[in-house]
């Protein structure tokens, strides 16, 4: 099972993913993928440090699957969280 770290940034609150170089991105395609539980635990430890440093809030692991090259969180709550509201933003 593939996993990623999801969180909110402190300053703007938007959803972010932990990257391979220990930074944070709004783009799920640019986030780090953990293929094993061991890798996932490592990512979580890095994310928790970032939480202690007040960069992000409430980081946790989510399971994802690949559809072609596209990462898709397997739980629909996390899918909506990662991709935004399923209804258009009013304009």
């Amino acid at each position: 099972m593939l996993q990623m770290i999801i969180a909110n940034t402190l300053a703007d609150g938007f959803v972010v993913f932990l990257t391979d170089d220990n930074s944070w991105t709004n783009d799920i395609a640019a986030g780090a993928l953990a293929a094993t539980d061991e890798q996932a635990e490592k990512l979580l430890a890095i994310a928790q440090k970032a939480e202690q440093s007040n960069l992000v809030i409430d980081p946790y692991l989510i399971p994802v699957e690949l559809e072609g090259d596209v990462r898709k969180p397997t739980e629909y709550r996390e899918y909506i969280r990662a991709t935004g509201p399923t209804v258009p933003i009013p304009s």
Partner: protein
Amino acid sequence: MYRYDEFDNRLVTERVEQFRRQAERRLAGELTEDQFKPLRLMNGLYLQLHAYMLRINVPYGALSAQQMRQLAHVARTYDKGYGHFTTRQNIQYNWIQLKDVPDALADLAEVEMHGIQSSGNCIRNTTSDQYAGVAKDELEDPRVYCEIIRQWSTLHPEFSFLPRKFKIAVTGAPNDRAAVKLHDIGLRMHRNEAGEAGFEVIVGGGQGRTPFVGKTIREWLAPENLLSYLEAILRVYNFDGRRDNKYKARIKILVHQVGADEFRRRVDEEWEQIKDSALKLPQEEIERINSYFAPPDYAQLEDNTELLASQRAANGEFDAWVSANVADHKVPGYAIVNISLKSLRLPPGDMTAAQMDAVADLADEYSFGELRVNHRQNLVLADVPQGDLLALWEKLAALDLATPNIGRVSDIIACPGLDYCALANARSIPIAQEINQRYQDMDRVNDIGDVTINISGCMNACGHHHVGHIGILGVDKRGKEFYQFTLGGSSDQNASLGDRTGPGFPGDEAVDAVETILNTYLKIRNEGERFLDTYRRVGMPPFKEALYGAS
């Protein structure tokens, strides 16, 4: 409208500066999230599914045109250009950034608005009848008492850390448009045998995972005793309400567990100690507050039924809008206009900044510069000359704000659901939009007539599903969205909780189920019966059979 005095002004501006420093300390890493969270919640700032969410109070739903313009400004400057009006007559911004919140609050303070007590375990915004002051059936203007309650409950030191949140609603009319029986305290104005106006006091109503219709603990309370009696109720709750379990901490659980008679006894015992204290409301003070709600400078008009009838006869769409969205006004020649925020284009209760600005202009032009928000997530222009209805309708239609569906099948209450909310289990908005889409044929909609559909995305029931004539509750069933149905709920003076139909339906069958329920009603209704009347006459069996087949 009420205008802030020096105390209100000082309190709000000092709070903005206090929060600015708190936010700066959080951003600088001097406060942890655990330390900061209660501070931000005291100012209405949540962290939701995608982002921070800022909730701003609209006291008893009353807004000036100037305030509406400032809400538009905040939406445009600090958010994504829209806002969401809630069932508590407030507004929420879904994409506000922490670093911008102090500036947004400072801008709102300029027009006497804030998020204080819009979250947390305290007394929240007191809600009321959107037709306050203009309804034909009204005894007295409930806003006067809402404002008195606002002043008493704002930063009330004894009630800043209640067991759980606390909501009060007031109606001055026998036809309850404020759902007072579904609040922690509901106040219903009526006359006693001597002909004096006072309050029936209803306690322990509420929705959520354990819904109750409130119980009357006092048939009639003199207005001069309003605050001492409220204080006695809050004090009993503050002492005796449970704090060990968040889901059993609302006053409704206490009232249910000890019983209404015992609860009344405890309140009366407390009240005896304080009823003649400084909490007694002098008549002069009631009159002073009342003066803020003096009627606007109405023109001397007559009810112009002939002109309106000819305009309606000449324009079917205008006629449909007047039928559904315009209500009688107590002053001759005037009308109450409901502005539907349930168009096909936007989620229920959502409004763009451009619409907010435009509607503020319309309020200035046609309704003495005032607007109201109601608990069904629509707006009201309360004082429109009947002769202006056609011109106003044309302008509203150009803004996509003239959907003729107030009280109809597509006038749906929906919580933000899983599209926005961190607590939700399922989405609400797409179900509301799909129902709206399916009921676009206005002949069919008008044939169905008055029906309320309320949708919640979890059992916390922000979408009032328990009291919808048709209630829809989204649940997570093994990782999929399912929707359970209740029938027969109502939030008016004859309030009732809906009955569960049976097992839920997957998301792609939920709107078919709505149609099945409504088609069953159309088949079995008697002449003149609303959906709710039919349900109360025949009960669940025919609906159950239609939904699930013969047992």
